[in-house]
């Protein structure tokens, strides 16, 4: 008898926890979705001057190709027109037209969420290429000189190149004449170009990236660094120590592949500034942005994908089973008396519109009025259904009066009753009356207080945002709730209230 319930409950709990664990471990879901996370606000401002009617300003914008999620963005372009261009991995905003006589104020703003390293990998692995401006003669010379290293494994090849550039020492342990010639060839280039050339010569894809340091503040210009393709993603090369650090965490990439992040043609840019600020954002919201772009089946079928106007309903609905579990606990473990199972839940839902204080006050007042009316109706000898109809009409009439009074005195809550409560109130009035008749006023008041207490607790639970978000991110927790409900259903021990009810036995025992 007890076994199957236990097995089913345990299976439900295990399945639920398994899916949650899978989401957290494999899909990188947040363990505490309600906790805050960070979002960066990127802002560019500048004034474009020019007399030509086809002045151009090209600004590399944050892009998903750079592992950045753009939550929202906005532009200011004055009289100039704005277009978006794609250029390799870069997303470029193009302002074109004739700037005004005082110059045209141009600005761009975006909220950017950084993907964790490795979360984004390009479909096609990049190929090696030499930077622009290097001659084919130099290329064949360098490739010939680097040939001995090209057969090494990836990390050894990379290390050789990093060491060469870091020490800028081409004498080598061998004192090789070839190396000296290599040093000679590279002398005229700067460090980033040397890295690009040497990495290309040993078959390691690399690129220059232009962007900003990921720190809050305002800077006047961008800077560039070199990134190498490690097979899993782009690795940032620290220019000082010539070591690979994980990219993206410390930098905001704007333009990759050697393009300058800001370019102006037939015009001049002044008052140029880049601004970064860090904002707190709830982790689930951050996660929502991430999940809505993911290809995983669990993400595809996530509640985040349904239109936002319906999401709120499901956030509440997901917690109603928890309310039902709570009623089970309060009734079967503690021994609360309530009018049915659903009435407290429905009351709790109604309180969402009116608030707890006004909700309870209105509920009490209308039940009292209804009770008095119900006593009167009893003398009129009405049958059940028409009598209930009269009560419904009375309850709705009370709502109307409340709404008019609320409007007059500016009490919004009096008008926010919604559609559900009339059913609950009518049923409660009738049940209250029957309980008074059968078991006396005392029991009726106790049951009413029990119902009110349970609905207040349920209300507090369904309004608890942390819980709402957790269940919304992990709807499979419903299976856990169901498992607990089954376990609670198999509790056949005493109720706490029975300690009082049967107290004579305790004393005697």
């Amino acid at each position, binding site marked *: *008898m007890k076994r199957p319930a236990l097995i089913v409950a345990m299976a439900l709990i295990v399945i639920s926890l398994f899916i949650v664990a899978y989401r957290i471990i494999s899909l990188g879901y947040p363990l505490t979705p309600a906790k805050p996370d960070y979002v960066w606000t990127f802002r560019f401002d500048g004034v474009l001057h020019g007399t030509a009617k086809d002045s151009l300003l090209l600004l590399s914008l944050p892009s998903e190709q750079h592992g950045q999620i753009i939550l929202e963005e906005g532009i200011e372009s004055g009289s100039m027109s704005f277009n978006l261009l794609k250029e390799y991995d870069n997303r470029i905003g193009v302002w074109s037209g004739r700037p005004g006589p005082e110059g045209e104020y141009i600005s761009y703003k975006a909220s950017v969420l950084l993907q964790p390293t490795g979360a984004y990998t390009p479909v096609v692995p990049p190929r090696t290429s030499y930077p622009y401006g290097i001659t084919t003669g130099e290329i064949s010379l360098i490739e010939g000189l680097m040939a001995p290293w090209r057969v090494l494994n990836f990390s050894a090849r990379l290390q050789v190149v990093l060491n060469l550039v870091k020490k800028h020492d081409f004498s080598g342990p061998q004192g090789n004449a070839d190396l000296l010639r290599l040093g000679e060839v590279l002398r005229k280039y700067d460090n980033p170009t040397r890295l690009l050339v040497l990495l290309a010569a040993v078959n390691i894809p690399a690129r220059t990236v232009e962007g900003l340091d990921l720190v809050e503040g305002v800077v006047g210009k961008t800077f560039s660094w070199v990134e190498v393709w490690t097979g899993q993603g782009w690795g940032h090369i620290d220019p000082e120590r010539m070591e690979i650090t994980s990219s993206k965490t410390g930098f905001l990439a704007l333009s990759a592949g050697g393009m300058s992040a800001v370019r102006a043609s037939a015009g001049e840019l002044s008052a140029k500034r880049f601004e970064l600020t860090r904002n707190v954002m709830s982790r689930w919201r951050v996660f929502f942005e991430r999940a809505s772009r993911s290809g995983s089946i669990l993400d595809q079928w996530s509640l985040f994908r349904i239109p936002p106007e319906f999401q709120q309903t499901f956030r509440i609905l997901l917690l109603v089973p928890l309310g039902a579990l709570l009623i089970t606990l309060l009734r*079967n473990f503690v*021994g609360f008396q309530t009018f049915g199972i659903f009435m407290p839940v429905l009351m709790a839902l109604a309180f969402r519109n009116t608030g707890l204080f006004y909700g309870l006050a209105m509920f009490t007042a209308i039940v009292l009025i209804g009770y008095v009316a119900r006593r009167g109706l009893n003398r009129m*000898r009405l*049958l*059940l*259904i028409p009598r209930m109809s009269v009560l419904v009409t009375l309850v709705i009439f009370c709502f109307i009066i409340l709404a008019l009074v609320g409007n007059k005195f500016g009490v919004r809550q009096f008008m926010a009753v919604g559609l559900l409560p009339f059913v609950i109130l009518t049923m409660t009035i009738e049940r209250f009356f*029957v309980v008074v*008749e*059968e*078991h*006396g006023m005392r*029991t009726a008041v106790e049951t009413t207080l029990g119902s009110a207490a349970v609905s207040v607790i349920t209300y507090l639970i369904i309004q608890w945002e942390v819980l709402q978000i957790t269940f919304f991110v992990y709807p499979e927790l419903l299976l856990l709730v169901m498992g607990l409900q089954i376990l609670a*259903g*198999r*509790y*056949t*021990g*005493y*109720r*706490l209230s*029975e*300690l009082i*009810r*049967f*107290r*004579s*036995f*305790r*004393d*005697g*025992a």
Partner: protein
Amino acid sequence: MGMLRPFKGLSQAGVLGMNTRNADIIMALNPRSKFPLVDDKVATKELAALHNIPTPALYGVITKHGDIKHFHSITESRDSFAVKPARGSGGSGIVLVKERQGDILITQAGKSISTADLIYHITDILSGIFSLEGHDDSAIIEALIHPDDVFSSVAYRGVPDIRVVVYRGVPIMAMVRLPTAASDGKANLHGGAIGAGIDMKTGLTANAVHKSAIVSHHPDTGNPVGGIKVPYWEKILLMAARSLEMTGLGYVGADMVLDRDRGPLLLELNARPGLAIQMANRAGLLGRIRRVDRAPGDIFATPESRVDWAQQNI
């Protein structure tokens, strides 16, 4: 009484709690399909007749609103009768008429109501107000009980009734419910009636429970409730024990009355008998249930052998 095991006292006393009753006893022994036999008093009456268990004489049944006109022909020749909802629970909706004065009817509790009021009450019954699930119901009109005088010193108006709890056909606990002024003549413990435990072997009453206190005297009449010998005790136990054969329900509360002329009559059977009987007897049902479960198999053969075993062993 340790903090860690707050229920130890109750479980040692063998007290049956609400959760155990619902899950382990009722759900295990009372198949849902048999509930209609006891939820509808008309069905119970017919079944009882088949098993030679006496019940109050049935005058008539009103099953639909159109039949209400028959009320007059049913009650015309009677001065006293009882009106009950066929599916009522906890004694609600019952009107006991002890005499008529023209168009005015005097109830057992001494109130007077008009025939029109009573007919309105019957329409309420038909609309299902007193039924457990609010379904349409029918109204039973049956003979009014003329209670045996044995309890007249400890009953305030109304009719005392005897509740016997039967587990697997074995009567395991009994009490007599005595109406009080507070209970408005109804033998309903919720309503303020008092319940006196009955010794299974001897049929002697003991102290009573009133609300949740133990009382030795009736609150209205002031007479001692203990030490009264219940007449026809073995017959009562036997009628209760037959409920197993009658209904197939393994856990039943059999409600009976003692009629001055006809002796014990079965009023109704209850598939979800309450727990208050434990207080009236100052004994736990669970302890007795376990004793029945340990009893030798052959005692379950006939109602007589079960009653015999119960009287010897409980």
